[in-house]
């Protein structure tokens, strides 16, 4: 694997999957609107080579106002996206405020989709505050620290999540900040799982 990981930026050039193309199409819009966001979880494991499929991409966005949200959804709709939960934008915004996720897909489709949430706790807020830049074939988007993602995957705890954590650890073994990983693991109370799966 050829990646450059320097100054909180990871550069990667590869053959794009349909999922990558979908992420690029979506993030081009959210980048233009200057909304703070991070892509987290499964897609990031896939981006760096994990051999499995997925149908959704998880994104935290900063807590934006109703007006900012209306601008976002209008821009998305103008670009052939739709919210599959409901077409009522007021209801969509209420869902976000209630810490529920809304899903954005290509118009009249359901898969793939972007699962958007507001951060509901300090871990989510930290993800936005400490984001990394990803340059995928020269397109830019953002993700949370890899150490945070590994710990969070262990916290989620399903076999798929643990496998994602192990994959990311193996790929970024040399670049990871071990102390930071331990701190995140301690915060999420998964230190025992790090020992169990020989992580860290």
């Amino acid at each position, binding site marked *: 694997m050829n990646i450059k990981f320097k100054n909180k930026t990871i550069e990667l050039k590869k053959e794009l*999957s*349909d999922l990558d193309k979908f992420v690029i199409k979506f993030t081009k819009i959210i980048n233009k609107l200057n909304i703070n966001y991070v892509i987290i979880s499964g897609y990031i494991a*896939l981006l760096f*080579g994990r051999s499995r499929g997925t149908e959704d991409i998880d994104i935290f966005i900063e807590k934006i106002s109703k007006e900012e949200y209306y601008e976002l959804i209008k821009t998305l709709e103008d670009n052939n996206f739709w919210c*599959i939960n409901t077409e009522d934008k007021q209801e969509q915004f209420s869902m976000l405020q209630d810490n529920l996720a809304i*899903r954005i897909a290509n118009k009249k489709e*359901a898969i793939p989709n972007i699962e958007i949430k507001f951060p509901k706790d300090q871990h989510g807020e930290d993800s936005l505050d400490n984001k990394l830049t990803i340059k995928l074939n020269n397109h830019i988007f953002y993700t949370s620290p890899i150490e945070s993602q590994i710990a969070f995957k262990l916290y989620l705890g399903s076999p798929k999540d643990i*496998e994602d954590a192990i994959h990311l650890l193996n790929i970024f073994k040399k670049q990871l900040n071990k102390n930071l990983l331990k701190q995140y693991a301690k915060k999420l109370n998964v230190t025992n799982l790090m020992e*169990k799966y020989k992580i860290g």
Partner: protein
Amino acid sequence: MDKNFKQRIEFVRYWADYVKTHPNKVWSKQQNRIINSVLRSADQNPKTYLKIKEIMKNADNNTEQKRI
């Protein structure tokens, strides 16, 4: 850790080593076959999809409750 899960973890480690030791173009071409086939065979009915996700979320919550 059950035997099946242990074998899956061994494969994850094997594949991560493969990814690390091969050019991006090589591993990404192979990986894309899996990713694209999942998307292209998907049921695009939003109501069905949201229902399935709801059931899966409830199952995950039950697992988390048991863990706690």
